Structures are given as C-alpha cells and as structure tokens.
C-alpha cells in the first residue's frame, strides 16, 4: 500500500487520503457493530462505546461476552485481551514518535490495525503523518457506521443474513496480504495463524492473537 512515494514526506492529508478505503470499510464494520450491540446494551451505550473505545475486535468481543450473559469483569478481560496487540504495535511505533511523554501518549491513541499497517515503512520505521491521517479518516466512519447500525438495526435484522460477520476477516486479510511480502513474513503469518487456531479451543478470546506474536519472535531469530 505504498500510496506515497519517497520523494516528499507524507502529510496528514496524504494519510487521510490513504485511509479513505479503510474508512469505507469502517462504515460497514461500525454498522455491523451497531446492529449487534444495540439489543445487548442499548443505543446510547453502543454509540458511546464506539466513540471512546474505538477498537472493533474488542468491542465485538466484549459485547459477545455480555450478550452471552457474562458479567462486566469477563467482558472487560475479553476486551483487554483483544486490545493487548496494541501494546506490541505501540512498542513498534514508539521510536517513530518524538516530543514529550504526554504528546507521545496522545499520538499513540491513533494506533489502529489498518493505520498501523499502512504507516509501516519496513525496517521498524513508521510514518507518523500517514498513521494519524489514516486514523482521522476511519474514526468518523466508525462512528457513522455505528449510528446507522443502531438506527436501522431493526430493519437489518440478523447481521449474519447480510454477511456482515464476514467483513472483519476480509478486512484483516486485505491488510495481511499487503504485509506478507517476503517469504519470511509469509512463514511468520502461517505460524501465527497456526498458533492462534490451536489456542482458540483452550484460551479466552484475544489470547490466541497475543500468542501468535511468538511466530514473529521465532521468525526474527530464524536464520535462512
């Protein structure tokens, strides 16, 4: 997804432009969240959650726990586990950030999967403006989608009938194909997928994704 060439540094506007396709996908994802969440937590809570948590996998995961009758503690743990990958992403992104701790903490909030992948320049470098801009394109889209899902959820009925539950995997697959450009990266992807699948039956949601990071550790040390 090399939208910007190396001749001039990317601007936040470049990031917004590069983030627009993700924004379009985020509307659909947010819509499916609004549809799923409204009967579980009510319209206001669904909209507030999208505004203040702004993390699709964690929002779906914790809502599923609540819908299944799990308590707040179980829902919170599920959400934290599903968001724990942002810890690894933040460590990766940190060297590309400058300024004081407060400013770095605030800029770190812009890390979401698609922006992080888009801003990844390889070699451990990230383009800060691309990341910020891409998130600026996705945040309002996620809110708009959630509101639409809450408003029209009754008309939509079961989101699975519209295939909305297939949007997330497709979204992540598109990001993955862009990242898995070297044989080593492809091997790590296969390893991460295998680890995650093996752990789904035995670990709470989210943990399989964190454990998949082991594939990156092994892949980094593997001599070719």
């Amino acid at each position, binding site marked *: 997804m090399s939208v910007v060439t190396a001749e001039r540094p990317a601007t936040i506007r470049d990031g917004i432009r590069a983030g627009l396709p993700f924004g*379009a*996908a985020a509307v*659909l994802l947010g819509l499916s969240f609004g549809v799923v969440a409204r009967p*579980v*937590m*009510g319209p206001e809570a669904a909209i507030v*959650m999208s505004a*203040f*948590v702004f*993390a699709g*996998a*964690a929002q779906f995961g*914790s809502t599923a726990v*609540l819908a*299944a*009758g799990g308590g*707040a503690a179980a*829902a*919170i743990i599920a959400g934290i586990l599903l*968001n724990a*990958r*942002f*810890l690894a992403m*933040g*460590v*990766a992104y*940190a*060297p590309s*950030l400058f*300024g004081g701790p407060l400013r*770095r903490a605030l800029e*770190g*909030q812009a890390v979401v999967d698609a922006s992080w992948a888009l801003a990844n320049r390889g*070699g*451990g470098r990230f383009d800060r403006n691309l990341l910020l801009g891409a998130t600026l394109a996705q945040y309002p889209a996620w809110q708009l989608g959630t509101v639409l899902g809450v408003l029209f959820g009754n008309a939509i009925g079961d989101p699975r*009938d*519209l*295939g909305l*539950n*297939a949007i997330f*995997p497709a*979204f*992540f*697959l*598109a990001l993955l194909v862009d*990242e*898995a450009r070297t044989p080593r990266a492809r091997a*790590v992807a296969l390893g*991460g*997928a295998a680890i*995650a*699948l093996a752990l789904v*039956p035995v670990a709470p949601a989210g943990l*399989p994704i964190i454990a*998949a*990071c*082991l*594939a*990156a550790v092994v892949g*980094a040390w593997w001599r070719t």
Partner: protein
Amino acid sequence: MAHVSAAWITIGALAVATAVIKAAGPVALGGRPLPPRVTAVVVLLAPAILAALVVTETFASGRSLAIDERAAGLIAAAAAIWLRASLPVVVIVAAAAAAGARAIA
C-alpha cells in the same frame, strides 16, 4: 437489555484500559530506536498479528472452531484481493458471499 449497567461498566473500563495500552509503548520508548534484535521481531509482528486476526475472526465461534458462512466470505475476499479489487469492494464481495452461503445452508 438485561446487561445495561454491566455494559456501561465495561465501556468505562475498556476506554481507560485501551488508552493505557496504546500509550504504554510510546511513553516508555518514544523517540529512541529499539535494539536491533527487538526491531527484527517488530517488523514481523504485523503478519503474525494480522494472520491470527484473520483465522480467529473467521473460524472461532466462542471457544470452538467452526466452518460457517464466514469461510465462504474469506475465500471470496481472497479472490477479490487476488484480482486487485479495492478494499471496499473486497469487504462487500466477502459480505455478499457469506450472505449467499448462509442463505443456501
């Protein structure tokens, strides 16, 4: 809507926890290059995490694995990506395929 107060507690806690998780790396490590051995891992985090998200979002059904309409959506998405479709087209194709598979099943 039996879970309304549990939902608000969840939202508040997750909003704070997510902000802390996202801030931790940048606050602790900002502006300084990572050791080369760590960087070597970091560059491979994206394929590992994204692949794990793809398979869990497709095949996980709670604590069990299932092949359902999402798998049909993923195959259609793969085909659309291979044909160099744009991301909005990829997700719409996936949704259409999954909806179709569900209608047939």
